């Protein structure tokens, strides 16, 4: 009777664990291999850029090795648990008291050491090729500055300043035009992570970091801040637009222009410039030159507001200016407490900043 119970326990345990693990691997392979239901999923196993590719290929080796180790050792455990369980009905004698075996110990020391050496060599190659890659001529240079809770992007060679949405050209592998980013922070630690393009690199105040991407497939790639930076860390989203060269050049051209001066919005512009807005925001070509908050010169060229959390619509813009805390509680933009008339005028003005 107890023998059966023991077997039942042992076997059901094995089955339980195996089912769960199988489920895990099945789910993993589903999400990694099969087409995702949303193309926006920032899946690290679907890279479109060389740093991401290098990591992906390394990860295949690491997963293969660790997978093999798991299968071997797990099988040994399962075998031991099944084969060497106590069966009632046997005498109460103790089994052979074995104290150890030097040969076995040597074997299972040497083999792991060899595995470590192999893994390390493969890893060191990728570290070097990613971190020490020289910057070719023709690379786009971007300076990314992390703020609580938004991203500032400057293109020093092109004279552009924008925020939250990064535009880069597609890089043809035969004649690469990568984007090299210099990473800095204006306040606390942040981290730039767009999984399909590269591994993450931190933005640390009083320190300059570097990373690069060379996406070879155009599209929109999502990411977000990956180092806890304060209350709205979760809503510091990243959008990277990888565009064909002509499209990118058009975008650059549009960004380089000074702010559109639309006479129909003069009233709004006047109110904007006489309120505290200009202390934090820049609109190039006007008196507004604050740098604490994002550059608004071409606000309407962006798809989203508040670092990616809501679409750039008039409704959202109005709500954001009226009460930023209602959309991003704890963010550093104060509620301006404008009258309805002023608010409408300012929104109308901002809507002209294409």
């Amino acid at each position, binding site marked *: 009777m107890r023998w059966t119970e023991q077997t039942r326990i042992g076997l059901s345990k094995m089955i339980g664990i195996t089912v769960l693990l199988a489920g895990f691997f099945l789910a993993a392979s589903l999400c990694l291999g099969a087409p995702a239901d949303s193309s926006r999923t920032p899946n690290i196993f679907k890279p479109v850029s060389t740093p991401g590719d290098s990591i992906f290929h390394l990860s295949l080796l*690491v997963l293969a090795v660790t997978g093999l180790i798991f299968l071997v050792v797990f099988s040994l455990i399962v075998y*031991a648990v099944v084969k060497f369980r106590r069966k009632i009905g046997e005498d109460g004698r103790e089994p052979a008291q074995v104290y150890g075996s030097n040969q076995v110990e040597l074997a299972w020391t040497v083999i792991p050491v060899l595995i470590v050496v192999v893994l390390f060599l493969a*890893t060191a190659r990728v570290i070097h090729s990613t971190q020490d890659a020289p910057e070719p001529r023709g690379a786009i240079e971007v300076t990314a500055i992390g703020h609580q809770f938004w991203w500032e992007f400057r293109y020093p060679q092109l004279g552009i300043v924008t925020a939250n949405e990064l535009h880069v050209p597609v890089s043809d592998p035969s004649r690469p035009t990568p984007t090299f980013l210099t990473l800095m922070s204006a306040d606390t630690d942040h981290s730039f992570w767009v999984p399909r393009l590269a591994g993450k690199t931190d933005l640390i105040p009083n320190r300059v970091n570097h990373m690069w991407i060379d996406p070879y497939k155009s599209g929109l790639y999502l990411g977000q801040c990956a180092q806890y930076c304060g209350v709205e860390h979760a809503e510091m989203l990243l959008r990277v637009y990888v565009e064909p060269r002509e499209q990118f050049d058009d975008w650059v051209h549009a960004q380089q222009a000074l702010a559109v001066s639309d006479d129909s919005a003069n009233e709004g512009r006047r109110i904007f410039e006489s309120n505290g807005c200009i202390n934090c925001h820049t609109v190039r070509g006007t008196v507004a030159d604050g740098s604490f908050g994002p550059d608004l010169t071409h606000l309407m060229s962006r798809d989203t507001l508040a670092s990616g959390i809501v679409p750039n619509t008039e409704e959202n813009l109005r709500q954001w200016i009226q009460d930023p805390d209602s959309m991003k509680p704890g963010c550093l933009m104060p509620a301006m407490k404008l009258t309805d008339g002023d608010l409408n005028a300012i929104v109308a003005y901002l809507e002209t900043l294409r």
Partner: protein
Amino acid sequence: MASETIAVRAAEAGRRTIAERLHDWVVTVDHKKLGILYMLYALCFLVIGGIEATIMRIQLVAPNNHFVSPEVFNQMFTMHGTTMIFFVAMPVLIGFGTYLIPLMIGARDMAFPRLNALSFWLTAFGGLLLYFSFIGGNGLYGAGGAPDVGWFAYAPLTSPPFSLGHSTDFWTLGLLVSGFGSIGAAVNFITTILCMRCPGMTFGKMPLLAWMNLVMGGMLILAISPLTAAQIMLSIDRYLGGHFFDTQAGGSAVLWMHFFWIFGHPEVYVLIIPAFAFASEIIPVFSRKPIFGYPVMVAATVCIGFVSLSVWAHHMFTVGMSSYANSFFTITTMAVGVPTGIKIFNWIGTMWGGKIQFKAPMLFCIGFLVQFLIAGLTGIMLAASPFDWQLGNSYFVVAHFHYVIVGGILFTIFGAFYYWLPKMSGRMYSETLAKWHFWLFLIGFHLTFDFMHIPGLLGMPRRIYTYEADRGWQVWNLIVTIGVFFQAAGVLAFVANLVWSLFKGDPAGSDPWDAWTLEWSTSSPPPEYDFARTPVVQSRRPLWDIKHPEDPDWKYE
């Protein structure tokens, strides 16, 4: 004369009031009572830390959820991590060591009984100080509440401009105080093991639990001190206008990271090594064989102790260190996996050829074996620094370390409770209830932490109070949250079992498991003086020698 005194005392014992008994516990310097105090303290905080985790999981069950505000969520993950490491894992492991070490080496108490008591009360007070922040953290600015800077409190987020009020100071001071308690415990462990072993118990004949607590003590000494130093520096920054981590004055945020992780990484080995000790005591007894490769187990543990002091910056692979630094920490981190793997093989070797009994302690240790294997392998993945550039600071890392701490350490702790509870209380637990505990917790653990790896692979960073719906993370978060309730049910069964056993458990007798180390030679519970006469031993398994005089261990060791 002596027997009269004892008789009188026994007669009076039944007539002690509650106040007297409580007083006895408060002023005790007896290692057994202090060990139990540590364990009870840890169990209370296990429940509190679990509630904090549950709150987070409910908030994350769906995208853009509004169960709690971002401020509260950020306090939850900070307090959950800090509580579980400093006020659950460390006290319970130090508690077991405090209880067991003298009994296993044939001593009457620890080397410094009053220091022992001081260490417990410092640890306890530190935890209360930390939790007082919920009430008193609202400093003069009206800001604060509990600390919300993450359990590793990176600078400059902890500097006064970014951390208003006193919440960060409660984190700093609570841990500073309990850190002194931990150092006191470490001093006691080392001195006891080195200086109070019974005659015949050379280093080569000490139980593995004693060896591992010795290494743990050494590591605590070297690991807690950097944290203490860094916290003093942080307090100088926050209160005296210092600039240690003030980036505006030229200070370095990365310096805090180095100091913290020089503490932080050895700290997790401080936690796992006693877990290894429990497995090394339980697996042999329930396999009915001695531990396979005792000298190698000792050497591997010492090796892990040393190498783990050189791996800390694998928590900083994304910080922008040079490729040489990244390579160095990659190789040391992979290297520390070798002695760890050797131990897994030795445990399997112990079970091999044995006659395994699937009692609760063994079930939990087998779960530990499988789960620690997986956790070690995901650790190897993270050790490959480019892979860490993707996986670091994501839910993959959160899944990895919970796999180690819950799947590895907590499972062996549950096993240790079931194994030694009969010794501590004199009562057996309910095997049925224990099996319910095991299965419920196992299912919950795997639902939560297996599937938690996936959002990490899909780009979900950690410490976010919500996430966008278009990322494809919601179904995984839902599964993860469901697992929490199974785990809670398992813990409920555990607590119920503990309480039940105290009132209704069968008397355990001194040696319910037919085990072989010295603690099983005393009554259950042991008398206050542990041993009437100091034992003398000749092998690693003194009780085996007595039970098998025709085939004693010392002939083979």
